C-alpha cells in the first residue's frame, strides 16, 4: 500500500499569506503538494463552519493563515479569527477530531520561506495523524 498522503485545505488571506505563498513561488522554494489553497480576503472571513465543512468533505486537515496579529490589512480581522479558532479547536477536540487537524499560522507577505515551512509542518503533522474518518464513521459525510 502506498504511503498515506493527506489532503489539506488552506485558507490564505489575500494580503499576507497568499502574497507570502506567491513569494515562495517567485523564489522557487519547494514544499509539499498536499495543500490546496483558497484565497480569502481576510483570515477573519473564515467561518468556523468552513473548517468543519472541509473536514466533512474529506479533508484530513485544514490550515488558516493570515497576517500577523497587529498587522491585519483590515485592522483587526485576524484578531476575531484568532478568538474564533481557539474555541473551534476546543470544539474539535470535544467532538473527537484531533485539534492538530486544524492549524492556524501567521505568515506575512515577505515570509515566503516561512510559508513553505508552515506547509511542510502542517503536512507532516496531519500525516502523522492518519486519515480523518470521523465524519464518515458517524455517517454525516453526505
Amino acid at each position: 500500500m502506498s504511503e498515506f498522503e493527506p489532503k489539506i485545505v488552506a485558507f490564505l488571506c489575500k494580503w499576507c499569506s497568499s502574497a507570502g505563498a506567491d513569494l515562495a513561488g517567485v523564489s522557487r522554494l519547494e514544499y509539499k503538494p498536499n495543500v490546496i489553497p483558497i484565497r480569502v480576503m481576510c483570515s477573519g472571513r473564515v467561518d468556523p463552519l468552513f473548517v468543519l465543512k472541509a473536514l466533512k468533505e474529506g479533508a484530513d486537515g485544514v490550515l488558516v493563515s493570515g497576517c500577523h496579529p497587529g498587522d491585519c490589512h483590515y485592522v483587526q480581522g485576524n484578531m476575531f479569527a484568532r478568538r474564533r479558532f481557539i474555541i473551534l479547536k476546543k470544539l474539535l477536540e470535544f467532538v473527537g477530531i484531533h485539534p492538530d487537524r486544524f492549524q492556524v499560522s501567521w505568515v506575512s507577505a515577505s515570509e515566503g520561506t516561512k510559508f513553505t515551512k508552515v506547509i511542510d509542518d502542517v503536512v507532516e503533522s496531519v500525516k502523522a495523524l492518519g486519515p480523518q474518518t470521523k465524519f464518515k464513521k458517524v455517517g454525516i459525510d453526505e
Partner: protein
Amino acid sequence: MKRNGVFVCNCGVNIAGTVYVDKVVDEIAHYPSVKHCEFYDYMCSDPGQKKIEDAIKEKNLDGIIVACCSPTLHEETFRSATERGGLNKYSCEIANIREQCSWVHKDREKATEKAKSIIRGIIEKVNLNEDLDPIKVPVTKRALVIGAGVSGIQSALDIADSGYEVLLVEKSPTIGGHMAQLSETFPTLDCSQCILTPKMVAVSRHPRIKLMTMSEVVDVKGYVGNFQVTIKEHPRYVTDDCNLCGDCVKVCPQVTVNEFDRGLTLRRAIYIPFPQAVPAKYVLDDQTCLGLNPLRCDKCEKACDVGAIDYDMQPKFLTEHFGSIVVATGYDLYDISQIPEYGYDTYEDVIDGLQFERLLSASGPTKGEVRRPSDGKVPKEVVFIKCVGSRDPESHHPYCSKICCMYTGKHAMLYKHHVPEGQAYVFYMDIRSAGKDYEEFIQRATEEDRVMYIRGRVSKIYREGEKIMVWGVDTIAGKKVEIAADLVVLATAIVPREETIELAKKLRIPMGPNNFLKEAHPKLRPVETLSAGIYLAGAAQAPKDIPETVAQGSGASSKVAGLLSADELTHEPTVVRIKVEECNGCGICVNICPYEALTLDKEKGVAVVNDVLCEGCGTCAAACPSGASQLRNLTDAQIAKMLKEML
C-alpha cells in the same frame, strides 16, 4: 448552471514544465458546466486574450476561468478581455497554478492533481459569481506627505505644483531631514545645504503646501480617495511672533546635546536647529527645560521682547481628509554601540559618518575644519571603515546600505582637501560605485587624492596614548595591517526609523524582513504600497542616495497627482450584502466592522451596509449567526461548493 470557459496557460514552461496541461484540459473539459477548455502558450499575449473574447461569442460562455499566474499579476488583464467579450468582468476568475503550484512542486503528477483541484474550486466560485458594477466614490483632492526630508519635500512640491493641496507633516522642529546635516554631496561635491535650502524655502512659501512640524500621525482611517487622518502637533512653546533675535538662548541655563550636530556640540533648552531651519522659529525642548508647570524659570520669557514664548501651549489634535498619502519617513543610523569591537561608545575619536559630515560642514561645530572631537587637533591619519553593521547577516544586518561606498569615498576625498598632508585609509569589502559619474568619482579619490583603499575588515580598535589603533587585514596582500590613527570614521548601516514601524501599522502597509517599507512590486510598482492610495518615497523603503530619493519623491507625487485628477474613484464592488429577510438585527456585525460600514436600522431591526465604506474583508460574514451577512462573490455557499469540489 453557467456555461464556463477554462483557459489553461502554459506560461512557456513555467507552468507546462511541471503541470501536465494536456491532462488538466482532458479532465476539466468534461467537468459539469465547462463548455470550452483549452491550453495555450501565453494567455496574457494578445492572441491569448483574443481566445477568451472569441470563445465567449462562439460558445455563448458566461463564465471565464483562467488558470495561470497569481491574480495579483493578470487578473485585470483577463477581466478586461472578458469585458471585451461582452461579459461582466466579475464573471472572470483566476486559478493560481503558477506561484502556488507549478513553481513550488517538482512531482509532476501531484502538481497536476493539485492544479486540477484549484481549477475545480475556481469553476465553482465562478458558477455562483454574480455580475457586479464598480462602486463610485468621490475623491478628496488633497494629499498628505509624511516626513519632510528631501524626498518628502520633493514630493510635496511636485504635488502642489500639479495643482493639489498638500499637508506636509514633520516630526522634528524643522524640515530638511538628514540632507540638511550633510556637508557636500557626491559625485559633484555640491554643498548639501546650498541645494536643499531653496527647496525648503519653496515649501514654506508655496500657497498650496501647509506645513506642520513637531507633528505626527496618530490615527488613519478610511481608504484610497478618502483617508481620514488624525495628526498630533506637539507644542513648540514659541509662537509665530518669534523674530529670531536669539536673546532667549543667551539666558537659558539648561544645556543638552545637539542632535543636529549628532552630539558633537551642546545646545540650550531653547534653540533653533540650524540657521536656515524652516519654519524659522526657535523651539523650546520641554524635556530639557527646567520646568513648564507649575514652576518655571521664566528667563527666556523675560528676555523675549516680542512676547513669543508661550509656556501654556498644549498638544493639538486635528483630523483632516486626504485622497492620497506619501510616506517619506527616511532612515536612521544603526546603533553602533552594538559593535563593541569598534569602540564607538568608548573613544571620542571614533565617530560615525553623519558626525564626520558635521565636522566637514561649513555650518558645523568646527566651521568646516577637520578637527577631532577629543582634543581639537587636526588628524593626520584617518581610517574610514565601510560596511559597519551592513552585509553581516550573522551579527547585524544582511543588506548593503548602498550609500556608504560613495560617501566614504567622498569623506576621504574631502578630508584630503582639508588636510592635504594627511593620509586617508579606507577599509572596504567591495567598492560599489554603480551610478552616474560614481565610478569616476571613486577613481578621483584614489588617483588624484591618493586615498589608500585596503581590502579587508577591521577586527579591533583600541586606544594607545593619543592614537586610535586600528587592527585589520589586507586580504589582497594577505597581511595584517596596523594603523595608528588620529580619527576613525565608521560607515554605519542604514536602518528604517523606529517610528516608521508604528506608522506602518497605522497605515496598514506591510514592511519587509528588515522593517523597510514594502513596495507593491519590487520592479514594476516600486513607489506604490499594497494599500491603494498610499505611496512610498525615499529611504524608508530601502537605503537610497539623494538622486534616487528625489526621483522616487517625484515618482510618488506623479502617482498622487494621477489619482487626484479623477473626479471619482472606483471601489471594489465585492462588498458585503445583508439579506434582510434573514437578519435578526442582533448587531454583532455592527460592532465587528473596523470601517463603521454597518449600522443598525432600528426601525426595521436589520443591519445596513454602506457600500462605500465596506472594504469587503468579510469578517462580519464569518461572525453573522444567521448567515444574513454575505460577501459578494465569496459567499458561504460558494466556499462550501468550492470545498466540496476541490477535495
